[in-house]
């Protein structure tokens, strides 16, 4: 079945003189290139790209695609990544020329539909988070974290000017946090201080107390956290951070558990990012694109990146460049007055500036908008209810043969531990992950969070059926009972067996060279 001829590297398939795409003849009077481009900047020949025919290219990539497991083809319970179904309707809508073929520097009068959509999305995200203002600019969750930390840095810079105090330099991060949290803090010029969590997954309040002082700028918390529980002391944590003069940042990676159930702004967050590619079903694209819109409280709004989209009431003729804040009132009426128009507001003197070129990852945001409009308020709540139902159901089946240190209940995901299997039978979390591939399941996330030994992090999402969950639980049960040798050598049925990661890192081969061995 497998076609290995056409999945050789593009360079190995290349034959001099072959062409796929052809271009029209030049229809304007042509002039010698040497007259137009200085000789010292002219290349002797074009880059050595492969030369292929179109059928070859198509067959190559079509066959490569079949070497992937994907949400369209398999259950993908990759914890923390929310691999839910990606609705096809959103793909077709995103391809409409009225969205796909818009240049980022078109005049505002020519993009009113686009700006309306983006404005409404800002409003929806604010409502879902319980926060006051929104920036759609960040390109990914980690980029949203970084943007929010820059916002916080700018806020504290102004505060220290006002009060004459020292600038706050510390960011507190729980040990169960995503690695992006401390990395973002460093990039924004802060020092990271790690706060411990308990076996239950809850924050160690004593350790928090030890680290909390007037140098703390931001406390970054993922809630529900990475072991899948809702932080029991959330309110108290937020109050203590606020009393100490700090800000609370919510890593919104796990928003899929609390849509319409609880809002970060209501439980104490001052800022949060969303992962629309998780929560709002943007396809993960083999690693990207995502987007990382952030929402913040009113006092932080002036610091958001520029521009933001504003709605200009019909009677005002010209206000762009004068409004300093987005209209605060909720404007969720899907049919605004036809006199209204939408504008980009750049006149924000306290803004941190830009975090990227152009408006944002609009294609991802558009799919998020479609997803929210498809569900409405009741539907979004049902998404979270079912995500939590599926996770708890799987937990109830798995905990009997694979310990789940955090307990009997979870939110949208849970973290099992293969620690005992490892010590008893030498079976590691990675062995289990690899063996699951043989049975047509993508593996859960393993070895994260770092706070759980031999972690196996399972997030089924709401778009899976009970039958799928049952099949997965039974397979997992069978796998942990298998002979260790079978597991150590797994996977057995995939196109390759386990790769030699050490060799890849010690003798890096990062590009094709004609001397590369062919398999």
């Amino acid at each position: 079945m497998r076609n290995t001829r056409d999945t050789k590297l593009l360079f190995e398939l290349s034959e001099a003189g072959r062409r796929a795409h052809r271009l029209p003849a030049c229809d304007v009077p042509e002039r010698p290139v040497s007259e137009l481009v200085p000789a010292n900047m002219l290349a002797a020949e074009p880059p050595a790209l492969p030369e292929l025919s179109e059928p070859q290219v198509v067959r190559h990539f079509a066959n490569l695609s079949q070497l992937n497991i994907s949400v369209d083809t398999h259950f993908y319970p990759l914890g923390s990544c929310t691999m839910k179904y990606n609705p096809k309707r959103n793909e077709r809508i995103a391809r409409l020329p009225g969205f796909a073929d818009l240049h980022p520097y078109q005049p505002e009068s020519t993009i009113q539909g686009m700006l309306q959509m983006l404005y409404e999305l800002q409003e929806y995200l604010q409502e879902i988070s319980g926060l006051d203002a929104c920036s759609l600019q960040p390109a990914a969750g980690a980029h949203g974290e970084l943007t929010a930390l820059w916002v916080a840095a700018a806020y504290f810079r102004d505060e220290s000017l006002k009060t004459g105090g020292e600038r706050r330099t510390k960011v507190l991060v729980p040990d169960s946090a995503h690695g992006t949290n401390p990395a973002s803090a460093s990039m924004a010029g802060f020092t990271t201080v790690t706060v411990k969590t308990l076996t239950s997954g809850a924050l160690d309040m004593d350790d928090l107390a030890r680290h909390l002082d007037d140098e703390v700028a931001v406390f970054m918390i993922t809630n529900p956290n990475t072991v899948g529980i809702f932080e029991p002391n959330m309110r108290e944590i937020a109050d203590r951070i606020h009393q100490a003069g700090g800000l609370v940042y919510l890593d919104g990676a796990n928003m899929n558990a609390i849509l319409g159930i609880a809002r970060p702004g209501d439980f104490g967050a001052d800022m949060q990012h969303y992962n629309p590619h998780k929560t709002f079903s943007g396809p993960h694209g083999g690693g990207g694109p995502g987007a990382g819109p952030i929402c913040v409280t009113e006092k932080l709004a002036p610091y958001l990146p520029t521009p933001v989209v504003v709605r200009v009431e019909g009677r005002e003729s010209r206000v762009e460049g004068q409004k300093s804040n987005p209209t605060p009132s909720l404007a969720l009426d899907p049919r605004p007055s036809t006199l209204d128009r939408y504008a980009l507001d750049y006149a924000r003197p306290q803004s941190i500036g830009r975090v990227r070129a152009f408006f944002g990852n609009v294609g991802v945001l558009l799919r998020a908008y479609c997803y929210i409009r498809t569900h409405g308020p009741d539907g979004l709540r049902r998404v979270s209810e079912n995500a939590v139902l599926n996770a708890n159901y799987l937990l109830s089946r798995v905990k009997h043969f694979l310990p789940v240190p955090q307990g009997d209940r979870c939110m949208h995901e849970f973290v099992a531990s293969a620690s005992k299997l490892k010590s008893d039978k030498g079976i590691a979390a990675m062995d289990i992950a690899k063996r699951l591939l043989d049975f047509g399941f993508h593996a859960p996330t393993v070895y994260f969070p770092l706070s759980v030994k031999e972690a196996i992090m399972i997030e089924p999402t709401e778009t899976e059926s009970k039958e799928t969950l049952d099949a997965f639980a039974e397979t997992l049960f069978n796998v942990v009972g298998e002979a260790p040798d079978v597991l150590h050598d797994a996977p057995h049925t995939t196109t390759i067996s386990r790769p030699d990661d050490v060799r890849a890192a010690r003798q890096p081969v990062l590009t094709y060279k004609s001397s590369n061995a062919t398999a």
Partner: protein
Amino acid sequence: MPYLYTTPEDQAAMLAAIGASSLDDLFAMVPPELRLNRPLNLPPALTELELTQHMAALAARNEHAGTKVCFLGGGSYDHFIPAAVDELAGRGEFYTSYTPYQAEVSQGNLQVVFEYQSLITRLTGLDVSNASLYDGGSAAAEGVLMAVSSTNRYGKVVVAASVHPEYRQTITTYLKDLGIEVVTVGTPTGVVRPQDLAAVVDDKTACIVVQQPNFFGCIEDAASLASIAHDAGALVVAAFDPISLGLLKRPGDWGADIAVAEGQSLGTPMQYGGPYLGIMACREKLIRRMPGRIAGETVDRRGRRCFVLTLQTREQHIRREKATSNVCTNQGLFALRATIYLALLGPQGLKETANLCLQKSHYCASLLCNGVPLAPPVPPRQHRQPQPPTTADSSLHTSGATGSASASLAASTTSTSHNSRFQLAFAAPTFKEFVLRDKQDRVDELLHQALDAGFLAGVPLGQWYPELNDCFLVAVTEKRTKSEIESLARSLD
């Protein structure tokens, strides 16, 4: 609910297995006082049909490159995308998968990334490429951070004013809280003058940032700029246009150490600014400082060639606060599109695309500055109307810049020298974009007039460069036909 399977019977059985009395009971760990006890204030759910109609209505309120002829550039371009790019990248096995954590079931994505990296190194003339970053602007900022950490010079970076203004703004944002100074070198002639660069680069400078062709479309004397930086021990971060490399010397061949680019031109639609593709390549010695994912070749247990994510000890999930960057994904789908695009074009296709951009943009410039061409004929009645006499030489606006090149450019294609409303703002050679000065200094009005005539004619520059308030940037890709170019010229009369 369109995307849920669970029947009431399933729910009851699942709740019983869990030992929960209700769905609400599942949320017992969320303290009651922290719950939202009302429905979200959002519009009601739409069916697929209603959603499609609603979105079509929104889309209909936008003009786009299909309803107006697009001459807009500035980092995002209306290049042609072959159908095979859409069809292949539209396969669910590609776009509904994720970062290849499990190499055994992600060989498709991993091989694509390896091929992408190989293509990018060939394109740039540099040794290594990562699996891509968010976009050109953030890639430029990451390139600067990389240069700062690898030179250990936390003093300043020098950025040319001819670098994309939004890239410069992004770099400033990234550096502001790290105490690193950003020095901007002015470019009154549209390109960096070597003496201006030499005056500010010193032994505290981590890198220079230049763009080739630059934001104005002008071709920089990049090799000279690179040697000034290298003489001071600074690195060269170069932003480039991937399409231009069908003709222009590669960044690695003129001295760039780190090359970054907006990869949108390689098969990604403009989609109002994103998501795009941040390209980054560098010299081998810098690789441990490079942010982002990297794929590498290795063998499996049976000795077969395969691909994995590698050199991950640079990354945030292992290094946490000591990581080279917080970036944890690439733009996989657009790296895939670029790989397919380049595979379809090949060296000849890329060269022809670049040449069409070059020829057509020069034709367009000469037409706008010097009048309609002699041949092939345009019906006489469509020839331009007599021009109002220009009253002032607005080229005094910026020092050193003149439109003198326009006369020579046009000589071979136009009938007579023409008393045009426009002149080229800069004399430097250009690739696919150029800056026009409106001698009447009424750019906004002019662009509105062009819009009414069916053209997205250019990007006004005053928003970023107050001294170029009477100027706009025009981009001409391979898609623009002679007749579109001539119609634009007539409409701007």
